[in-house]
């Protein structure tokens, strides 16, 4: 699930000793005494790196979906900071907690909440779709079908939702 990295080839090339800029003048050994160790001082490799635009992630639908998935985590992180403030307010007492709840009603926080909800749903759907690649349950020579793994995760989400809503809702 890690992000793709289009640019570490430069670092890898530097590690391999391939010069990124014009090669400084080196005395080329005569053909007759061209030993293998002498030719290793300057490699003849010149891998081709196609130019990568800054907006590469807008180029295709798959790239855009990936960018949306990565952006979803930033928004969710902001909401986690909001929840953290709520936790401290709850510790501080009823008045602080009431003030925090009233802050949640302000337009900015409602906007953050709506976007964070959309992003959390995006994250959930894309994450669940990827889990069968990691969780492979063998049944004889074959594996359990992907849809059961995904369904199990949705059930986990639903169970947690029921627990939280019951806990909040019990009188």
């Amino acid at each position, binding site marked *: 699930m890690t992000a793709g990295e289009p640019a570490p080839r430069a670092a890898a090339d530097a590690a391999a000793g391939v010069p990124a800029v014009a090669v400084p003048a080196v005395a080329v050994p005569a053909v007759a005494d061209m030993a293998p160790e002498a030719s290793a001082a300057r490699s003849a490799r010149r891998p081709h790196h196609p130019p990568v635009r800054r907006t590469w992630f807008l180029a295709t639908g798959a790239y855009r979906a990936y960018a949306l998935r990565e952006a979803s985590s930033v928004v969710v992180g902001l909401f986690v900071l909001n929840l953290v403030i709520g936790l401290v307010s709850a510790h501080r007492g009823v008045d602080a907690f009431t003030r925090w709840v009233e802050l949640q009603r302000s337009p900015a926080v409602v906007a953050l909440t709506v976007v964070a909800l959309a992003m959390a749903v995006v994250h959930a759907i894309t994450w669940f779709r990827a889990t069968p690649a990691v969780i492979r349950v063998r049944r004889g020579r074959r594996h359990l079908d992907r849809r059961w793994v995904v369904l199990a995760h949705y059930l986990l*989400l639903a169970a947690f939702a029921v627990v939280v809503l019951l806990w909040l809702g019990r009188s």
Partner: protein
Amino acid sequence: MRRWEGRTNEPLFWALFGGGGMLAVVTMPVLVVAAGLLVPFGVFGEPAEVHARVAGFVTHPLGGLAVCVALGLVLWHCCHRTWHALRDLGLHPPEVVRAGIYGVALLTPAITYALCLAA
């Protein structure tokens, strides 16, 4: 013993990222709806009533610690993705930015729990 040069601690970061992602995907949709929409708009009653119901778990030292650790793990997921998103955009921020981003993920639960214990 194998040499240390050229090795990274990225697999450890990735493991925490995976754990945080799993926790986030199970908990965050409900928490966003409940804390962002249901509680503020009175579905569960007045804030004082909600506080009376949740305070038992949330203000308990171990309950607060559990919530802090869980939110911290989710934050780690977000910070790891943010760092790699910066690299995907073609920027290559220096190591101090990386320390800052992961520092947010590490320090936020720590500071939160300290504030909770102090309150």
